[in-house]
């Protein structure tokens, strides 16, 4: 009986060891795969990177990425914008693109600064069901776990600059599925500094990244621009108290929720844009 139990224990230990070995093999495979991806995307000649991008563009779902040559003709976009302006005379493309810039900043704050308060105010509920929305939710959950463990007050890299380049209206769709939708393509440039791994004393290394994305903004079909509400409101509509920062979700004095803004346009989803021709 005792020998039988010892055999069982031996088998269990053996299987556990084999399972642990399998986990190590899988982990090494993941590390190797990520290493290859990083070498190709960051350390290879442009020709190799372009092949990598073409493969990714061909295989990824169109729900997740757009390919750089998928663009509506500028004449079509111009016509749709004129149609929008006719229906909504107070619509102004400069003010609209300006609010799109706020979305870019808010997304960067959530992604790199781990602060999603502004992003939550300017997005549709549907955004949080998209792939990128879920990624932000995951980052915020990681931040909460990290703050419980380390009691730190800052997270992620220090942000030196966030800017956008070359915003272009890619598509305008009016009245489809009950919403007006404008898609803006732009490159967001992030400059930051993060602690270098293993450096002693702690040293900071530069992080520069430029990512091209398509941003979909929607508002209910037929809605008109309120000329007095094209900017983020900076005072409470109920008590008149000033908000302390762009991140305030509610009035610090009367606790009323911060009103809708951006002339009704909200970020509905964004897509990575893969430029398979290289840049």
């Amino acid at each position, binding site marked *: 009986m005792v020998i039988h139990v010892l055999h069982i224990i031996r088998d269990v230990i053996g299987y556990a060891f084999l399972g642990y070995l399998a986990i190590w093999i899988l982990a090494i495979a993941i590390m190797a795969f*990520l290493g290859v991806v990083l070498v190709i995307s960051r350390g290879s000649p442009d020709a190799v990177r372009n092949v990598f991008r073409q493969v990714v563009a061909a295989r990824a779902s169109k729900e997740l990425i757009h390919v750089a040559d998928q663009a509506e003709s500028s004449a079509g976009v111009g016509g749709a914008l004129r149609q929008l302006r006719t229906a909504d005379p107070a619509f102004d493309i400069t003010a609209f693109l300006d609010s799109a810039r*706020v979305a870019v900043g808010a997304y960067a704050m959530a992604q790199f600064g781990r602060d999603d308060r502004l992003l939550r105010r300017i997005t549709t509920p549907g955004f949080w069901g998209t792939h990128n929305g879920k990624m932000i939710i995951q980052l915020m959950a990681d931040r909460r776990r990290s703050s419980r463990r380390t009691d730190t007050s800052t997270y992620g890299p220090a942000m030196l600059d*966030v800017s956008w380049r070359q915003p272009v209206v890619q598509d305008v769709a009016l009245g489809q599925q009950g919403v007006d939708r404008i898609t803006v393509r732009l490159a967001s440039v992030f400059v930051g500094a993060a602690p270098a791994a293993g450096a002693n004393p702690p040293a900071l290394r530069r992080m520069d990244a430029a990512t091209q994305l398509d941003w979909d903004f929607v508002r209910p079909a037929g809605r008109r621009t309120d000329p007095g509400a094209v900017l983020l409101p900076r005072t409470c509509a109920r008590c008149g108290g000033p908000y302390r920062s762009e991140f305030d979700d509610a009035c610090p004095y009367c606790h009323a929720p911060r009103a809708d803004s951006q002339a009704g346009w909200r970020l509905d989803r964004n897509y990575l844009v893969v430029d398979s021709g290289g840049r």
Partner: protein
Amino acid sequence: MSTQAATQASQQRMSCASGLWLMFKLPFMFLRALPWLGEIVRREAATTTGERAQASYGQLTTAADPAAVTAVLATIRSRDAGFDLDATTRGIVRARWAVHQARQSDDASVARLVMSGGLWSVFAMLLAKGAASGVRREDKSAVVAAKVVAATRDQLAEQLRIRLACQGERCERIGQQAVRGEPGEQATWDEDWIIRRSAAATTPANGGVLSGRCPRCGAALDIDAGGACTYCQALVLTGGQDWIVWSIEEAPW
């Protein structure tokens, strides 16, 4: 002595145990990346990093054909007799000074009067996050030349890209470490200041936003928390009535 030895031995055992525990956990830490592999691959495909990023989107846009710029400026002048490029450029240099002051004092409100609403929102967020991370900018520079390098006009908007040649020293530090620029090093660099206004806007008689005046009522520019002129309540920083600073792009440094 024996107490010290016992303490050292205990510490060694603890560090050995934590090392073994880390080794045990290590593969599980990598397994956490498994659900994100696709995302990592897609993001790598869509992103350029490091020096490549600086050499692509980080670089300032190539100057447009001078003849095309001249043609657009002539169109603007023909439509707006009050447009004065020299006065506009002086207004931009003044705006740069306001932004410089805001960065030095960590007070974004100083730059509120010259930036578009969206640009200022992002600027204010960055300044707040930078201050929280201990980022300090040291900048002793001046504009030595300015030139319009691109001009566009369509049915909706007019836009000028004005390249400022700057000279001096600039550096950003976190603690004692310089993360951008070299402390004390004299340098020259370019900054692109992009101004934009509605295609229907014309230059106000008093000079407008870049001269520190409300483009509608002409009062000295003073805006409330909602972005409206405190005298006439016009929303002046949306570009609908006058030039506003729409974007600031710096060459990589």
